[in-house]
């Protein structure tokens, strides 16, 4: 194995624009740990949604590589985030993904912390023991209209506020806080987390790989813009549909236009409301809503799908009837967790308002297809024959923006 920590600055510096990354970025343990420190340790990471911890005392745990995080809903309904590690002997505090607790209690020696992280009880310690010095280590946590982000760095990137201000108006009509989790799926993709993200950032592969997804979505909404007469006719049709959708949404006060800061912000993001095929309602096999109880205060079913992408680890699709969120959480240099969460209105009743199999069919199938593609890429980039290859300027511009953002943020991290 190459000692890539020393080589990392050079590898970053010589990365050619418009080309895939060199092999060590997808395979090397030292670079993986640098990713955990400089990317996942310093940026805003999407970890879940507010309906997962709706009531006081609800806590959730999420592991981001070697970072263990717990997020709690306190008695004032605010979100609190901490390292999920006891200050006594380092035991993991919250074991399962979701729990309901009075206080946060270590299962080892029962050190007890309030939901504000303060140490309330530590048995058998001396009289002069400073409980105030042994509270849980706090992390930055923010909710973007119900999407929960944490930052493990001492100072969190301040431009989260700007993203929240802009994206909040797009997301708010879908009323995440009034949703419930209908289903959640964890799959382990057999590749480095960047391969999972790069695969998400293009739809060059969609028509061949995703028959279920392309039933409703247009690849053109995801950076796909090939040349040629047939492609141009399709692009013109898509442009008409996007114009019609945005006009109808703007009339209802629902923001829709494209905003792209994927590569020019510390907290990179992109959003746009995109039209869907046929009925135009939802990312389902029949393009119609999967849940008859609509989200928020929406009364119109045909709102297409609002896409939101955030660097480094998430994407989201918001429709009139349901929301699908995706978080990528690095596990090892060559495995990544893809956590998918389907949300419906909290009053929707399974089997009455929605059929779970119908609700989840498209993305369940698409995730499995994407995981197989990520595995194929991982199988190739770890071989001796791999050399960086060129991105298509017409269809892979958003992948290039992901890589450009990654290289820029790694260099900034190494410099600071």
């Amino acid at each position, binding site marked *: 194995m190459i000692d890539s920590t020393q080589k990392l600055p050079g590898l970053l510096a010589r990365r050619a624009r418009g080309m895939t990354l060199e092999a060590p970025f997808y395979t090397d343990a030292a670079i993986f740990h640098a990713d955990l420190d400089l990317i996942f340790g310093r940026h805003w990471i999407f970890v879940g949604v507010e309906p997962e911890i709706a009531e*006081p*005392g609800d806590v959730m745990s999420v592991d981001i590589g070697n970072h263990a995080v717990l997020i709690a809903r306190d008695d004032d309904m605010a979100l609190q985030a901490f390292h999920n590690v006891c200050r006594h002997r380092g035991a993991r505090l919250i074991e399962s993904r979701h729990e309901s*607790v*009075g*206080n946060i*209690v270590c299962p080892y020696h*029962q050190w*007890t912390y309030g939901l504000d992280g303060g140490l309330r009880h530590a*048995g058998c310690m001396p009289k002069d023991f400073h409980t105030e010095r042994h509270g849980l280590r706090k992390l930055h946590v923010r909710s973007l209209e119900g999407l929960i982000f944490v930052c493990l760095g001492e100072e969190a990137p301040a431009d989260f506020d700007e993203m929240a201000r802009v994206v909040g108006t797009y997301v708010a009509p879908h009323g995440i806080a009034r949703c419930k989790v209908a289903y959640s799926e964890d799959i382990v993709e057999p590749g480095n987390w960047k391969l999972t993200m790069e695969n998400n950032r293009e739809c060059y592969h969609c028509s061949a790989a995703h028959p279920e997804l392309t039933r409703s979505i247009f690849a053109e909404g995801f950076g796909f813009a090939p040349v040629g007469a047939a492609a141009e006719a399709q692009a013109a049709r898509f442009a008409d549909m996007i114009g019609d959708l945005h006009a109808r949404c703007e009339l209802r006060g629902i923001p829709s236009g494209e905003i792209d800061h994927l590569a020019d912000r510390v907290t990179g993001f992109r959003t746009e409301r995109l039209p869907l095929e046929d009925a135009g309602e939802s990312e389902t096999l029949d393009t119609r809503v999967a849940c008859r109880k609509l989200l928020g205060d929406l009364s119109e079913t045909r709102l297409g799908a609002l896409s939101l992408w955030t660097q480094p680890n998430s994407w989201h699709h918001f429709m009139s009837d349901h929301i699908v969120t995706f978080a990528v959480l690095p596990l090892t240099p060559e495995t990544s967790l893809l956590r998918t969460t389907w949300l419906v209105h909290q009053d929707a009743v399974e089997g009455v308002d929605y059929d779970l199999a119908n609700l989840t069919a498209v993305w369940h199938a698409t995730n499995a297809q994407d995981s197989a593609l990520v595995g194929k890429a991982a199988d190739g980039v770890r071989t001796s024959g791999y050399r960086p290859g060129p991105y298509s300027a017409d269809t892979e511009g958003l992948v290039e923006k992901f890589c450009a953002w990654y290289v820029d943020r790694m260099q900034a991290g190494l410099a600071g």
Partner: protein
Amino acid sequence: MSEDAGFTIRFAVSARDVKCAPGSTVLEAAEAAGIKLPFSCREGMCATCKSQLTSGQVDMQHKGGIRPKEIAAGKILVCCSRPLSDLVVER
């Protein structure tokens, strides 16, 4: 009150009936009878002693170690609960 004042607590798992002296907690009654229950803070914070109350009423003065929905489901913290009637505790 008579000599044997206080309520009776049945610890169902231990199959023991124990007299609880007036003013004592359920935990103290167990300890006095030599029944070992898990506990740590003794003041209703850590919930180590959380137990199922299957019969009876208690006065529980906890410090945030238990949630209303748990209380509604019949859970008590025995370290800070005093009997208001005869009890059956799943311990």
